[in-house]
């Protein structure tokens, strides 16, 4: 049995208050860090833990922190990415609603490591309870001296604020997020310069996901070796999996990194609903290419999923049973990306719009065989030519549907209607 780490407090009544958090050992890791670690030692600890970012890309957190210039004269920022808008994902919301101090403690630890004195938590605007709980938790943390000036009697100062998003998926992309905090339309910016060198207000800035930050107090308390021992050594740690779709027991599951997708869906999730059969699973939010049923024995970690041309992404696991129409799902995913495209670059803006038109007629049974080749060509010209990963993800997800379920697309064309609806 795996003992929960990130969700261990979630079931305690009023876990979101500072009293419950402290009673469960909260903020002790912060005291340890401030009194016993230099920033460089802390960065080394996180490097040794092999913690990789839970926002989607899986970048090693300690390595990212290590890129921040050490010059004490430079102002630095930490931003927590709580924009969580990847369809199929609801893990950061649970942390913020049930245990916001875990995120805040992780942020203070992260800010100390990189020398930031100001931090922003970018929360998507629709998450009103997360915003309310986080704001309340910040007030408590200030009152208890975990934030503000001379934290726990040391000379470390940190101010922390919430910045609310307002309904744009692209704000989750880190450079767009920074643009949004600066009061501009959220459009990605060219990298390099990377935010760690030139980010918010032109200053070195680290952006980390909520779940990444929530891991930090535990790494400090229990050590890098403990963390590295959970799951695959190169992609370790406790992991939140969001399970939804055609599955008997949807929900948020905390399990080791690297468990098999089949075990997650069939054992923990209770398998497909009402005795149906699984057709495919999307493993990491809709940007992650779908896997047909035959591929479910894959391990849920960054490297194993990348090896089969998909990704862990946000670990939003969506199950499609045999009643699901892949053409309809592919159309809806592409509509989503088309709606959320920021419009900055042509392949994404024009290409997705075109793909949506084709997919709509295919779904209605008005498509032609040439449409499938056209879609493939479109995916090819969007992938690799988009300014940010939104365009790439859209093309990648659509290509996988075409590759694994071409026969379903063909049936729509030959039957002249959707065989499922």
């Amino acid at each position: 049995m795996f003992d929960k780490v990130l969700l261990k407090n979630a079931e305690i009544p009023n876990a979101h208050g500072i009293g419950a958090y402290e009673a469960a050992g909260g903020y002790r890791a912060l005291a340890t860090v401030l009194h016993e670690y230099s920033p460089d030692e802390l960065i080394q600890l996180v490097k040794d833990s092999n913690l990789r970012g839970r926002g989607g890309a899986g970048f090693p957190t300690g390595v990212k922190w290590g890129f921040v210039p050490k010059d004490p004269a430079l102002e630095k920022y930490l931003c927590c990415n709580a924009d969580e808008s990847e369809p199929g994902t609801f893990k950061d919301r649970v942390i913020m609603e049930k245990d916001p101090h875990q995120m805040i403690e992780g942020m203070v630890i992260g800010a100390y490591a990189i020398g930031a004195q100001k931090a922003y938590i970018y929360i998507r605007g629709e998450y009103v309870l997360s915003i309310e709980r986080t704001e309340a938790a910040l007030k408590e943390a200030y009152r208890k001296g975990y934030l503000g000036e001379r934290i726990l009697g040391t000379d470390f100062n940190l101010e922390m604020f919430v910045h609310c998003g307002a309904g744009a998926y692209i704000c989750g992309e880190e450079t767009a997020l920074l643009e949004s905090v600066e009061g501009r339309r959220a459009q990605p910016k060219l990298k390099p310069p990377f935010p760690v060198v030139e980010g918010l207000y032109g200053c070195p800035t680290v952006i980390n996901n909520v779940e990444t930050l929530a891991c930090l107090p535990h790494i400090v308390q229990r050590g890098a070796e403990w963390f590295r021992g959970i799951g695959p050594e190169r992609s370790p740690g406790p992991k939140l999996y969001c399970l939804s779709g055609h599955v008997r027991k949807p929900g948020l599951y905390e399990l080791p990194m690297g468990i098999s997708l089949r075990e997650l869906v069939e054992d923990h999730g209770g398998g497909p609903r009402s005795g149906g059969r699984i057709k495919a699973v999307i493993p990491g939010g809709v940007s992650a290419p779908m896997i047909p049923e035959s591929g479910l024995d894959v391990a849920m970690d960054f490297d194993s999923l990348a090896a089969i041309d998909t990704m862990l992404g946000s670990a939003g696991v969506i199950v499609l049973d045999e009643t699901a129409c892949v053409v309809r799902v592919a159309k809806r995913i592409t509509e989503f990306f088309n709606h959320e495209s920021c419009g900055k670059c042509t392949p994404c803006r024009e290409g997705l719009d075109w793909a949506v038109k084709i997919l709509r007629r295919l779904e209605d049974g008005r498509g032609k065989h040439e449409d499938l080749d056209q879609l493939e060509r479109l995916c090819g010209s969007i992938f690799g030519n988009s300014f940010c990963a939104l365009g790439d993800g859209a093309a990648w997800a659509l290509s996988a549907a075409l590759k694994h379920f071409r026969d379903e697309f063909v049936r729509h064309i030959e039957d002249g209607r959707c065989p499922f609806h």
Partner: protein
Amino acid sequence: MATGLRDKIEEVAGRYPNRRSAIMPALYLAQAEHAQLSGEVLLEVADILDVPEIWVYELATFYDMFHTEPVGTFHIQVCTNISCLLLEAEGIVAHLESRLGIERGDTTPDGLFTLSTAECLGSCDTAPVMQVNYAFHENLSERRIDEILENLRGAVGE
């Protein structure tokens, strides 16, 4: 415009090194007070923050959660993204359309309800879901919807 709004905006502006960053929070505060961000309200926000009006206008139109057009007292947003779609969110939208006598995107003539479809709301394990003025309603069915609408109408009647 109430001086209260000016004070609140000044307070949030203090969280950022420059005033442009305070436009989004200021728009939220203005929207809470006025329900709709008319041209006049946008001007006032620009004036309070002492930033060009175009900066304010740009953000009010870029972000979906800012309303430059009127919305009903109850803004119903039904998620139609994949997890909800798989659990028949389209039927939920159709049922709301027939109960409210309007199509998605429209507002009832009495100004009570606006019906929109939404992208993923982050509650996929309780699909299908919708938000009414950002409060979640989960595991929806036609019967649940009828109850919710009745409660909302009752809340206004009181």
